[in-house]
């Protein structure tokens, strides 16, 4: 018996919370994946069809579940961005995270050579 099990065999609060975390992540992942599928399905089938097929609530707009890239570990500056980046970052109140614009988008295309086959994970 696990040390976290109580004497009468019931699960401890820690185990309950662990199970809840596990289930919540898997459910949420399923929902995120379904939201992408729903995006495709919506174009062809409409809302009702999507709901009945997937058995989940309608997904939120993508911007509610994504995060802008930003450096880990440190706050963003209180002062406005310096000149070299100012055209790319929208003016914003203190400490709001910087918002990447088109030119700050992921993996700039101009330098992308042909992608290597995915033999190894690069990190």
């Amino acid at each position, binding site marked *: 018996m696990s040390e976290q099990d109580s004497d009468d065999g019931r699960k401890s609060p820690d185990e309950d919370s662990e199970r*809840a975390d596990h289930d919540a992540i898997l459910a*949420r992942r399923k929902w995120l994946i379904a939201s992408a599928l729903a995006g495709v399905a919506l174009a062809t089938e409409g809302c009702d069809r999507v709901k009945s097929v997937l058995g989940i609530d309608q997904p939120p707009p993508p911007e509610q579940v994504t995060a802008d890239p930003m450096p880990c570990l440190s*706050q963003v500056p209180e002062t406005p961005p310096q000149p070299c*980046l100012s055209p790319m970052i929208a003016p914003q109140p203190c*400490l709001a995270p910087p918002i990447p614009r088109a030119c700050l988008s992921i993996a700039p295309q101009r330098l992308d050579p042909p*992608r290597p086959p995915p033999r190894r994970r690069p990190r």
Partner: protein
Amino acid sequence: MAHSRPKRYALAIELTSYCNQKCGYCYNDFREDGGKSLGSLPTEELLALVDRALTEVEFDHVTLTGGEPFARADIFDVMDVAKRHGVGIQIISNGGLITEAMATRLAPYKPSFVQVTLDGATKEQHEAHVGEGHYDKTLRGISLLKMQGVTVVGCTVISRKNAKELGAILDQFRRLGVTSVALSRFSPAGYATRNVAELLPSRSDMIEALSQAEVRGRDHKMQVQVTMPMPPCVIEHSDFPNVRFGGCPIGTEMQEFALGPKGELRNCTLHTEVIGDGHTQSFAELVEAPAVMHYRDVTPEFCAPCPHKRTCVGGCGAAGVAVMGKSNPLDPFVAQHVDDGFRAALKEARRGEAALVPANRLRRASV
């Protein structure tokens, strides 16, 4: 036609591998032996390297870190180089080595902020994370900086030990006059991998911490920003409207590169893999190396079907590689809940039945 320099958000300069604190959550690989084997570059060499980095790449700002950056008296010379290039300055410090003279000298440089970490609202709790004898010194450092008008931003590394006390820590920051706080989370890269079982917070721990932060953001207008990735499958960001979230910036122009104590360039301060040597290679080429540009191409297996994998990249890849290994580097913050093998190993380690051996220690042992 003139060749334009690549633009990147930040360069974190690890001025020294030495640190006066002994934090259990330290992501620096060189914390292993207190930085002794690595040391630091001589002043002239460091200044020349920084000067060239800022000449070849258009950085928005530099982040001076370490080790403890104030352990180097020539930190002001580095700031002179940054000023000459017109780039901003941020400093990450534990505050413990800051003297009145240093704070007075620092003020005219007008750094965007000095970020100081407090991991407990009490001496006992803070020192349980960073080692004995540092709490009062950190509070004094914050006070000296504020007296000189230097902006201080707080930081708390959320761990299994302090997650439920975050509200009290934020209240302590507020009493110290610090209202902007970076919420980091224990991310086991580098040295920290040896403390995964002890410090890794669960999803529930994190939700508790964020709930307490949300109240301080809402009621006291504290600016609370999560500065480590929180994958959307674990945390619903919109549940915490008064807390700001961001994602891993590697491979984007928002990236903060790390220039190590020996002049090596890495993808970030947590990653140990070296992109190249700043002494012998062009920084303009290094920031566009395949290890940077293709970083986001591959994500952990668990994330493969997720529509957010390109933005989320599975959380902290550095921690993923360090703990789980290169073949499937899922962030341990996620893996603890979805990887049965890792979950079992964590449980055993927490019961004291078996030590959890992270991938980077296996590698070390096999070398």
